[in-house]
């Protein structure tokens, strides 16, 4: 194993005694067509809450956070891949796992055909030479007691690169590369602004010329005008050093600006992946569409926006089938009925609430009490219809019958049977099966049953 490791990295590096920053000397110049350098294969990372005594006595299984739940993708040399998603989607955990800070629960990731985590176990230093990480928060990722020079030189010291003089030269070159000046090298991080600190963080990551650079929310902690500076800097460095980059961000404009490929994540799984232009101009997955629509566009003052269900499921208990089905406006109705999409969504929401216990006979009664509504069948039915935005009768009469039955059961006090009735009849393929990859176009796939 170790032979393989040193072989593949030595092919792309000259003698570690004299590294330089100029790419030509490194013998690079491989084209993108050389194939993927990073392959992620059904990677899963779950956190297990430690069991308390009571749980152990009861032998109940500890709760498991499905942070990353089966992610696969590849990255080719020179790519800038953006991983985007909201909180709880697992993008940060994914990044930490790929950098070796966390071990996967199952699945694997390989860099140059070497399993990353075996590599980290055997030779962390060697691995670190190839993969570097830029942190989100510039104020905490720099040791406050070290000068900039010491900070930027540290990676070189750790990896025994050259003489002290050579190291200092490299430090000088790198700090100018990131837009700071050599006379700032004697300062401490506390004396710098957020943007300047982030530049130092980037300097530390690129000074070893890693094969893969991973950035976790590189501009999120920065002011708007500084963000732009860092974004341009990243573009420059990317081009100059021919880096392969992975960028984690929740900010889709940053992703669009910097990345040529995008991975959209939701609750630990990939929703959509493909070339940036494709994803942004033609999003296929309903979640991606929702995401793109929710972001307010600067200068657009008149747009009305329809909100999506804000009830985000917890990664501890992700929904069955397609993760997004509980909130998806485009959820697929069962074949045998003829629903209009909005009707179906309403009925499905009703079913979900029964399923999760958010709606029950008792709750119905208390809502009625609160709103001062009579508890006769007609009023309660009205209440339910209003709550779920069902206007009048549903177009499909069979479905309406079933729904009425369910309502009746619920009103009369039988929550369980109210649920059973619709659970059997009103099933969506979205909740039954986890969607597999569907090709949208060349280099664009989405995980959705609609496609």
């Amino acid at each position, binding site marked *: 194993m170790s032979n393989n490791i040193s072989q593949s990295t030595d092919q792309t590096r000259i003698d570690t005694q004299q590294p330089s920053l100029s790419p030509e000397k490194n013998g690079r110049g491989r084209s993108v067509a050389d194939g993927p350098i990073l392959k992620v294969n059904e990677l899963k990372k779950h956190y297990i809450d430690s069991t308390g005594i009571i749980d152990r006595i009861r032998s109940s299984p500890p709760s498991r956070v499905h942070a990353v739940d089966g992610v696969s993708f590849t990255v080719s040399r020179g790519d800038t891949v953006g991983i985007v998603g909201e909180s709880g989607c697992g993008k940060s955990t994914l990044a930490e796992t790929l950098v070796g800070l966390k071990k996967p629960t199952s699945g694997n990731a390989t860099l140059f055909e070497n399993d990353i985590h075996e590599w980290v176990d055997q030779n962390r*230093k060697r691995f670190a030479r190839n993969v570097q990480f830029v942190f989100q928060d510039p104020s*905490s*990722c720099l*040791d406050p007691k070290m000068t900039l020079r010491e900070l930027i030189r540290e990676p070189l010291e*750790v*990896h025994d690169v050259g003489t002290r003089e050579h190291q200092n030269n490299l430090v000088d070159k790198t700090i100018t590369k990131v837009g700071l000046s050599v006379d700032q090298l004697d300062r401490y991080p506390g*004396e710098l*602004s957020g943007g300047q600190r982030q530049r130092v963080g980037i300097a530390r990551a690129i000074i070893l010329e890693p094969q893969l650079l991973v950035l976790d929310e590189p501009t999120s902690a920065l002011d708007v005008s500084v963000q732009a500076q860092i974004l341009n800097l990243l573009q420059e460095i990317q081009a100059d050093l021919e880096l392969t980059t992975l960028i984690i961000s929740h900010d889709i404009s940053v992703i669009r600006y910097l990345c040529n490929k995008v991975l959209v994540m939701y609750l630990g799984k990939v929703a959509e992946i493909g070339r940036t232009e494709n994803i942004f101009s033609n999003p296929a997955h309903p979640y991606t569409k929702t995401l793109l629509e929710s972001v307010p566009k600067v200068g657009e003052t008149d747009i009305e926006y329809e909100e999506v269900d804000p009830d985000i499921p917890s990664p501890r208990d992700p929904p069955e089938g397609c993760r997004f089905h509980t909130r998806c406006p485009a959820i697929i109705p069962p074949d045998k009925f003829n629903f209009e999409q909005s009707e179906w969504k309403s009925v499905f929401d009703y079913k979900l609430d029964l399923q999760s216990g958010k709606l029950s006979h008792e709750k119905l009664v208390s809502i009625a009490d609160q709103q001062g509504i009579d508890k006769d069948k007609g009023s309660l039915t009205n209440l339910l219809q209003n709550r779920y935005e069902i206007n009048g009768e549903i177009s499909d009469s069979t479905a309406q019958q079933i729904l009425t039955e369910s309502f009746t059961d619920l009103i009369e006090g039988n929550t369980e049977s109210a649920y059973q009735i619709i659970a059997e009849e009103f099933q969506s393929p979205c909740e039954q099966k986890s969607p597999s990859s569907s090709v949208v176009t060349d280099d664009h796939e989405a995980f959705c049953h609609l496609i």
Partner: protein
Amino acid sequence: MIKKRTVQSLKNELRSNPTAIIGVAIFTLLLFGAIFAPILAPHDPTTQYTDRTHQAPLGFGGESEQTQLVDGEMQTVVEDNSGTLNHALGTDANGRDILSRSLYGLRTSLLVAITAMTISLIVGTTFGLVSGYYGGRIDDSIMRFVDVILAFPSLLMALALFGILGPMTVFVPDPFAALGIVEDRPAVTPFPGTVTLAISAVIWVWIARVARAEARQVRNQEYVTAGKTMGMSNFAIIKNHVLPNSLTPILVLGTVQLATIIIIESSLSFLGFSGTTLSLGFDIAFGRDYLSNSWWISSIPGLFIVAAVISINLLGDWFRDALDPDIQGGGGR
């Protein structure tokens, strides 16, 4: 590791805080006295001037009638034990100069304190940082060990060690005597080994606890994670990142613990567990029987201890007030 900024904070605090100045002043005086004891002491601390026993300090004492056996007969004799300049702080029951004894005693106390503190700092910081950084089982085992030690009363622990090791006195040659700068002074300074060891054994755990708390906090900082992604070994991370960032509270505690050490050392020598009789505690014990009349025999050494403890506490306060905000370590935005 000692930053300009730290020194600046200390200076600023010193300027604005009068008690800090008092602490520094008194401690410097005492330190000076202890170091230059051979020169400053007017007499050899072990010489017994049998004709001048129980002499009071300058400005005290006077004539008193005593019944004594003179030439086989009981006679009333007038004794004058007024203080003289020769023995400015008086003499003890054996006629030894108290000022000289106190200076040498102070020497012992400070020697023990500084040595014990150094050992405690090294051992305590090592264990504490390792425990805090790694967490898990390593942390559990070290901390249980610490708990056991904390459960022992310190004096009991010291007595036990004494029983096993004996006094282990190290006779350190006195440089002043060796160089011939002074004559008629003890040529060696007895350094009580067991006492120092016993005290270290007890004090290191406090240091370890503080070091652990700091390490636990520091290990969650992103710059430690950055060290990992850079490929640093855990040892390198602890040495280069965790240690410098944990140092401040450890040092503050260390300063304050010096006072505790002095008290423990005095207590031990008071009880007779020391390696030397040139000790403040011993003198206090020695003068116990004469508290009603020759009160100075016990009180003067006692005052020296009080002065040392107060000044060290003030020093500790100074450190803490000056360096507390500095623990966060970040200026700017």
